[in-house]
Structures are given as C-alpha cells and as structure tokens.
C-alpha cells in the first residue's frame, strides 16, 4: 500500500525538522509514499471559523487531487500537522455525512475540473506507524533502545478531538506505546491533551504563556527528560517560549521538546542530519544511548 503525503505549510517552515525526520523514518522503514502533487493550504482552523463552506472547498481540493493521483481504491493520505489532519479529516467526514455539503463543494470543484468521490482516508503518521506498520515490526527495527530516557508524550487537542479516530479523546496512549517499544519510559501525566495555547502565543501572549507553563512544569515535575509532540505548532509553543516563561513567572524550566518522529529516528539509528536535530533549540542529554560510532550521543 502506497501512502500519499500532504506536507502542509508548517512542515516547510517552522516544522521542517518534523518533515525531515518523518520522511527519513518512512524511508528507513520502507514505507512507500509519494507527495501529493500541487497541494494547497488546508485553511487551518482560522478559515473554518470564518466561512465553513469556503474552507471545505479549499481543503476538498486536496482530497480531489489525491483521487486524481491514485486512480483506484482507498487512498491513505498522511497529514502530519494536527491542524491539517483535523481540517482534512473534518472535510472528509462532512462530505461523507452530508450530501448537500458534498454536492455544493463538488459543484465548486467541478469548475476547476476536479471532483471528490469519497475515497480518501485522512491519516496521522502516528496512526500509520503504530497501527499499519505495527509496534512489533518497529521493535524489530530498533537499533539503539533509548534505555532510561523518560518521555512525556504530548498529543495536543486537534489530533484526538472532536473526532475520535485511532485513540481515546482525552487519554490517548498510542505515542506512549510507541515510546515504550523504542526502549524509553513513558511518563504518565494527566495533561497530555491539554491546550498548548495554539496561536495565542502570537495574539494574547500572556494567556498562551500561562498554558505552556502548566504543561512544561508538570512534565518536568513528573521527571520527564524530554517532551514529544506530534504537531508543529505545539512543538513551537512548548520549545521556543521557555525563556520568556522563565522570565515572566520566575521559573527555571529547561526541557527539550522534539517531534516523535525524531526520537523514533534516533532509536532506528538515523543520523542527526537526517532527523533535523540541528534545528532544535534544546538538545536532550542522552548519555544512556551508546552509539557504536559515538555520533548520536554527541549530537544529543
């Protein structure tokens, strides 16, 4: 089964490390994929809240393009950014459930010579790795088990809500299960789907910083060495504002925040460059990992 890959804008900007690590991991696991041709902006959460129909049309163009690219059968479209994942998923579900919406959107797409027939399954890469490729197969490919590393998995909100797809809406565990087969130790904490503030850090910054502070402090308090995310905006918020939070609230927060695909890559034996490690602000100390060439340990 070949996957189609929808990068979205974040993975080409703030979340480049996510794309680099994701593609490297897909390649090393021999999971076949190709990028969606001529994809466009998903519209993110902002467009949906202004005009739902227009937003659906924008997102549905990507779904119709996917059908054009894969003429037969069901298409698994990987959307790594949580916002893209949610918007594309919502469009897919609405077009399936509401014939009047489908008709309206298709009449718009028709003008551009496109049509959506309902063959696309929007998938998050976490779901693909854990449920399609399988934890057992990942275990077999792990070269450097991340022994002793304590990981706080942070899922954010959009991947699990409001649609229930591959995990529980309030207490997901897929990333924790993945972390375990990588040899690390998942930290149990109750804030794994609590809001990171989203775009608040750029608008009402005080509110945004307050939310991030709660998450970071609790992860540290529970003994996590690193926080893992599956969304470029969550990663950006949690990683980049630590200094500002410390100044504002008189804290001493200092915890690395990486993409789950980066940690996967480390365990699978990929190089620093392949995983975009140099793009992180904070490097986790991974003395426990003994790489034969010493390369990885130094990188971290």
């Amino acid at each position, binding site marked *: 089964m070949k996957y189609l890959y929808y990068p979205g804008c974040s993975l080409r900007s703030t979340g480049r490390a996510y794309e680099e690590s994701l593609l490297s991991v897909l390649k090393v696991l021999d999971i076949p994929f190709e990028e969606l041709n001529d994809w466009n902006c998903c519209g993110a959460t902002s467009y949906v809240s202004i005009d739902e129909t227009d937003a659906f049309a924008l997102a549905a163009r990507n779904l119709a393009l996917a059908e054009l690219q894969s003429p037969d059968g069901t298409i698994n479209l990987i959307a790594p950014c949580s916002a893209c994942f949610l918007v594309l998923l919502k469009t897919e579900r609405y077009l399936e459930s509401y014939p009047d919406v489908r008709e309206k959107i298709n009449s718009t797409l028709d003008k551009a010579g496109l049509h959506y027939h309902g063959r696309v399954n929007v998938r998050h890469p976490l779901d693909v790795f854990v449920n399609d490729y399988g934890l057992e197969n990942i275990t077999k490919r792990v070269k450097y088990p991340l022994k002793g590393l304590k990981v706080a998995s942070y899922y954010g909100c959009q991947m699990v809500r409001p649609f229930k797809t591959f995990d*529980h*809406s*309030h*207490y997901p565990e897929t990333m924790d299960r993945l972390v375990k087969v990588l040899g690390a130790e998942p930290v*149990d*904490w*109750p*804030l794994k789907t609590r809001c990171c503030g989203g775009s608040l850090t750029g608008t009402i910054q005080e509110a945004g910083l307050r939310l991030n502070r*709660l998450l970071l402090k*609790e992860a540290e308090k529970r003994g996590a060495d690193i926080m893992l995310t599956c969304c470029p905006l969550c990663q950006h918020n949690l990683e980049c504002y630590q200094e500002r939070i410390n100044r504002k609230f008189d804290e001493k927060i200092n915890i690395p925040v990486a993409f789950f695909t980066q940690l996967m890559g480390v365990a699978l034996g990929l190089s620093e460059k392949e995983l975009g490690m140099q793009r992180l602000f904070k490097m986790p100390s991974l003395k426990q990992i003994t790489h034969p060439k010493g390369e990885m340990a130094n990188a971290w």
Partner: protein
Amino acid sequence: MHGNGHNGTVRIGFYICHCGHNIASIVDVKAVSEYIKSLSGVVISCEYKYMCSDPGQELIQKDIKEHSLNRIIVASCSPLLHEHTFRTAVEKGGLNPYYFQMVNIREDVSWVHTDMKAATEKAKDLSRAAVQRVFHHKSLETKHVKIHPDVLIVGGGIAGIHAALTLANAGKKVYLIERNPTIGGHMAMFDKTFPTLDCAACILTPKMSQVKNHPNIILWTYSEVAKVDGYVGNYKISIRRKPRYVNEELCVGCMDCIEKCVYKEGKTPDEFNVGLSKRKPIYIPFPQATPQIVVIDRETCIEFKSGRCKKTCVEACDRKAIDFKQKEEIKEIEVGTIILTTGYQTFDASRVPFYGYGKYPNVYTSLEVERLVNASGPTGGELILRDGRHPKTVGIIHCVGSRDKNTNRWCSRTCCMYSLKLAHLLKEHTDAEVYNFYIDIRAAGKSYEEFYDKLLDENVHFIRGRVAEVSDWAVRPSEEGKLIIRAEDTLIGIVRRVPVDMVVLAVGMEPQADSQDVRRMFNISCSTEGFFLERHPKLAPVDTFTDGIFIAGACQGPKDIPDSVAQAGAAAAQALILIDSGEIELEPNTAYVVQNECSGCRTCLTICPFTAISRDEAKQKAFINEALCKGCGTCVAACPSGAIKQNLFEDEMIFSEIDGLLKMESPACC
C-alpha cells in the same frame, strides 16, 4: 359451527368509525361510506361515532342477523387495538370471526395527513382493497394448547427470588436457576438500601432461606440454561449443572475444609467483595450464602492444576463431601412458562480513563464502596483506603457511564439515590466532607426527595456539573498528594478544583455481557441498548413477544429494588394467568405446507426465526408446528416451489387487496 363459507353469495357489511374527531376531522367518513355502498357485494355501509363502543358492536351483531351478512369490515384504528374486539363481536353475531377484516384509517390516514380530500381518497382506496379481500376469507378454527403448570425462573437476584416465592406460595412448582454458587444477586452485596437505610442483607437473607426451604421450589445454583426447546405451555429445557466438586447432599457448610486448605491466605480476587479481598480456591461466597454449600474453583485449585495437592480439605471433611471427580450434569425439565430475571452488570469505570479508575488507587466504584462500608466486607466496615489512609474528603461523581453519548445514553435511575445513600454512610463512617458532583438529582420515588432534603441537612455538598477529570495534577501546595476533581460548577459558572482523598464513581447499569446470547436462546428481543424488550412499554411491561416468556427486574432496564420486586410480582401473576387457565388460544394466522407440492429442500428450515419448521425424514417433507409459528410469512416467501401458504394471508387475498388498491376489479368479486 359458524356458517357461511365461500360457496354462498358474499354479503358484506362495511362500518366506518368517526373515532370522535380523530378520524372524522380529516376523513369525510360519509363520502367513504357512500362510495363503499356502491361496490359489488356490499349490502350495508354505514358510519358510526365509536364503533368500539357497546352500541357499535351491537350494531354489527344486529346487522349480521337482519341482513344475513357473511363478511364484516370495520374501518377505524389499528388492528393492534381493536381487532380482537371486533372479531369477538362478529363471533357473537354468529359468524366465524375470521370473516372479519379491519382497515386502519386512523394511524395510517387521519393521524398522518392534513389534506382532507386526499385523506378521504386514501381511506376509500384502503376500504375498497378490504372489500375485494374479504371475498377470499375462509372460516378458520382457533387452536388451543395446554399449559404445563411448572415455571422456570432464570436468575436468583431479588427479582427472581420474589417471583419464585410468589409462584411457589400460589402452589406452583418453580425451578430457580442461578449461575453463581449462591442466590442473592447484587442486592446481597449492598450495605444499606435507600431511602429507609435498612440493611440489605437483613431484608434479603430471610427471603433467600425461604427459597431454599420452600417445598415448591427446586433451587439449582452454579447452573445455567443450556438449551430451550418447545413453545408456550410446553417448553423443554436443558440445565447445565456445573460441578462444585462438593457433594450438595453431604455438605453442611461447616467451612472446616476452607480453613484447612493448603493455601493459608486467599490468592484469588473475591467476586463477592468486587476484588477488594482475596479468597481461597475452596470457598463460600459470603456468610449467608444460599445454599450454604462450599464450592471449589477449578481454575485456581492446586489439585486441578497439578494433581499433586495434599488435599487437606478432603481430610478436614468428616462427611466426605469433597469429590474431585464430580462431572457436569445436564438436567432435562419441562415447564409451561419462563420468567427471565437475569439482572444487570455495572458499567466498567475504566472505560472513562479520565476519571482514573484503575490508575489512582483511591478511585473506587460505588459497588466497591458498598462492600467497603459493610460490616462483613473486606475491612469489617472500617473505611480504609487502598493506600491505608482514612479519607477526610470524598468526591462522589454521578452519571459515570450514564447519560453520556460516548458510553451509555440512558439514565441508570438508581445512581442518584445510591450516591445519596453512600454520601450518608461515608459521613457516618468517617465524618469526611462529602462532595456530590451531579448533572440533575433524580429523586423520583416514594420518600426519595425527602431523603435528598435530609442529606442537605447533613451538610453534604452538592456541585452541579459534569466532572471533566480526576487527576493527581497538583498546582497548589494544598493539592499535593490528593486527587483533584475538576468540574464546571454550572450554578455559579466557574471551574472548580476540589482536592479529595477518595473518589467514588457512581457507575451506571448495563445489560449483562451475555444478554444477546440469552436473548437468542429464549428467542426474545432486545431494545437498542441491549436490555430485554417488553411487549409494550406501558401496557405489557413484563411480557415479551414470545408467548409464555416473561421478564422482570433490571434485565428489562435499570431499576431499583422496589421496582424490580413489583415487576417480579407482575411477571409471576402473568405466568399464573396462563397456568390457571390451563390452555392458551393460538392465532390461526399460521403457515402450513401443502404436502403434495413440498420438495423437501429444507430452505424453510434454515430461515424460520422461530424454529417452528422441522422435516419429516420418512416423508421427506417440511412440517410446521402451529404452536411455534408466529405467522411472520418468511417461509411462505422463501419456498421455491410455493408449497407454503399462510392462513389469512393467502395469495388470492393479498392480490385482490392489491387490485383493490389499484382500482382494478378482481376476477373473484365480479
């Protein structure tokens, strides 16, 4: 004999009912009546305000005699309501009741349409269809089957116990089957009962021993129904009696064997204490278990696992009651009626992971707390938490697995009241501060609201709002080491964080895990949520769609003890009606096989949902048991050689009816 068959001239009487304004306000009944009068075969056509009234029925009887009518049609409400009424009237008038036909112009016409002209046309079409149909009606005989006087009751909770005692006291022989080693059900596990706060065991255990000692009750515990055959009045049941490995005749329940078991301490979670304590492989569920007979659990007993146990239990028993060679036994019984009282299961709280059950040791389910506060419970009634502490603050979360579209949508009806009761008991035992987090307090029952008032006076806190989460996420020093309940207090519009030592989840009531298997075995229906379906939600609450099978208690839907007992009494009364009338009348709308045309292909055997069809292997033909046939018509449609016909639904009747609807003259009536 009721006369007037197919040979003579057909003389139809047609009656259209106003049903007050129900029909007459939308259908021009006069126009319909006049139109029908013009059709061939119709001798009388008239309208009347209430056909179901005594004068209405007498009108039919009078006309049958005066005008020698031999077909009667009434256009009124649904046959479900009054078909029986009119058939009886027709029979009193001296005509075979199956010459009667009913047209539903209320539910199918006046109640669902607003355009009078169109509605009147539809009423005419339906009536004309009936006129053409009755030409083909035949005289049919009602059949009767005898009712075996014995009753099977499945499930020995409070509903089963009450139904068994009611029937036994009325002199009927009852088989009470319970799959656990003891009867008593959930009620035996409860501490006190709301709103009177009398002890559950004190009011239940006398009834349990009455069951054990009643000469008319045969009690088989540790037993399950394996097979159900037959039909109303004549059920043949196989009961699987699981081996206890203890001879029931010999054991007196002295428990010496339990004491002497090679296990010095229990190792297996004790079912009766919901896993809060451990039991040995040889055990009695609780002190008042009925029957008071020991049972050996072969899954955990060393003798069964290795065959090399010292068998100290055998040595300890001076009555030689322990028998490791005991085998499963199948008992065959015959009964006429069955009452299902199979109860419910509590909602699995780990399905709501954000309430932390199974993760935080001090989160309990309500059923666990019942045991925890009980004097014969795992802690002797002392409220010690799993981490050894005594709680100073307790939060009770209502509607866990109820009124929630992510889990179960229904209200479990008992949780509000038992939460109030537990709040009272927790305060009594510990003097803790108790917080109730509720959506609505549903205290609808005799003296229930007063009990709620009493709790308010006892300074129990009530916070209206569904709880978002229970966590150990402390943000203030005062919250360290506590469980924090986060909920929106919808009465004052703020989000509250309440740190507590103990959380009680008021878990809802669900159908038993195997309710679908039981449903199939007894050939009854379930409602969408999986509870057994009653024949009518208001007027036949303990009947099922299968004659002779009744339901009572929480297997029909969540209910408390008083309601379960009331239903159990009702189910017993329904069974008594059948038993004491001695026989039951069967609808003659059954299917029959035209023997010459049957090829013996077995198609009908596999599709009959009531297992009413068998195959006569000597003749190689299908045979339909009229007592089992419900007249669904599936076999009639499926038979490839058209060899199966159905009374009241013969091809010519249906086709004439269709012709009538399409305004085509049917050949027979011209």
